[in-house]
């Protein structure tokens, strides 16, 4: 006997009629089972979909985490914590969210995790802050952008440093637009700001970044 946690109708490829999809949390926490006329027709492993989603988007999420934190260790912690939160919170009973989250939602969750971590860090003792300072020197060597050519590697370092000099609200819009490949509407959704504000911050960010970078430095 399957205990249905959440039920919804959905369309699948090569099927003309919608199938009834059932997420049986108790028996098969990672699976959605599709029924048609009371017969089980297919089963979907949700963890596979989430893994594919993460393999596709993990690098850009990590880049955003790096821009929102002060060390590589913090960025990795924030990303891991965010994925754990998202994975734990999917399909919470009445919600019909089984699939991996939309990217604006993932960025919002990442942003909140980074803010939580920053709040924790401000409560640290002086001694811990000193040890963070030592770690941050190593973090300066962590590349944000991947490349094989030596010349391009130097340019990547210059670009990373310039991005770090931007104000936080400019930097996050720039990163989400250029490397997150979000639209202004999606950025607005992720950062909970009006779309026009996102667009103007992006324009200012480009102007400020161009000013920080010397001509022909990229």
């Amino acid at each position, binding site marked *: 006997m399957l205990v249905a946690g959440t039920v919804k109708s959905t369309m699948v490829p090569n099927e003309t009629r919608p199938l009834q999809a059932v997420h049986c949390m108790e028996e098969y926490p990672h699976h959605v089972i599709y029924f048609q006329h009371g017969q089980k027709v297919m089963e979907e492993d949700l963890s596979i979909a989430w893994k594919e989603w993460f393999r596709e988007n993990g690098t850009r999420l990590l880049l955003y985490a790096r821009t929102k934190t002060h060390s590589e260790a913090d960025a990795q912690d924030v990303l891991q914590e965010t994925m754990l939160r998202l994975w734990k919170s999917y399909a919470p009973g009445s919600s019909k969210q089984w699939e991996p989250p939309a990217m604006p939602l993932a960025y919002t969750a990442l942003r909140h995790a980074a803010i939580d971590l920053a709040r924790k860090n401000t409560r640290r003792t002086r001694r811990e802050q000193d040890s963070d300072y030592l770690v941050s020197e190593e973090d300066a060597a962590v590349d944000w952008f991947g490349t094989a050519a030596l010349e391009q590697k130097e340019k990547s370092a210059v*670009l990373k440093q310039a991005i770090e000099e931007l104000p936080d609200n400019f930097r996050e819009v720039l990163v989400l637009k250029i490397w997150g490949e979000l639209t202004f509407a999606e950025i607005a959704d992720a950062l909970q700001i009006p779309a026009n504000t996102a667009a103007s911050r992006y324009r200012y960010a480009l102007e400020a970044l161009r000013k920080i970078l010397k001509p022909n430095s990229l």
Partner: protein
Amino acid sequence: MNPEDEHFESKLREFTPVEMPQALQSRILEIFDAPETGRQPENVADKVTAFPILRSLAIAAAVLIAATGVFFAVLNNLSTNPGAGPGTMAENPATESFVPLRAENVFEGVDDEGLFLTGGKIPVHGVRYRFSDSFHWQNPKDGSVIKMTVPSERLYLIPVRTD
């Protein structure tokens, strides 16, 4: 968007985010195998712990500390500067033979300096005003005149609103 911005944007897009460390990727992919699904996120309201008695004590302590600070600041001011008060400024009679006759401030132009980031990473828009300042002094005894003209600039940093 102007062509210059588009060109710059396309240059930025040439840089791609570095691949994720393998260990981190493995750690995160393992999360999706764990039987942690279907749980409600923790209720934030449950985390809030109110301390009504301690809060009132803290307010009283803050008021006491502030009052003590003000008291000692006033005491310190009185002991170090007993003569402080109106009418105690030292008089410094002008003895120069030249007296100021005229001063002019001529506006010459304005330049848009674009976006600036201040030390605190606050975005401001720079507007530079250029002036020519002239000063004339005259010696009343012999009528001799000194004229001096110097260029001056004023840079106004106007905060950019981005919220």
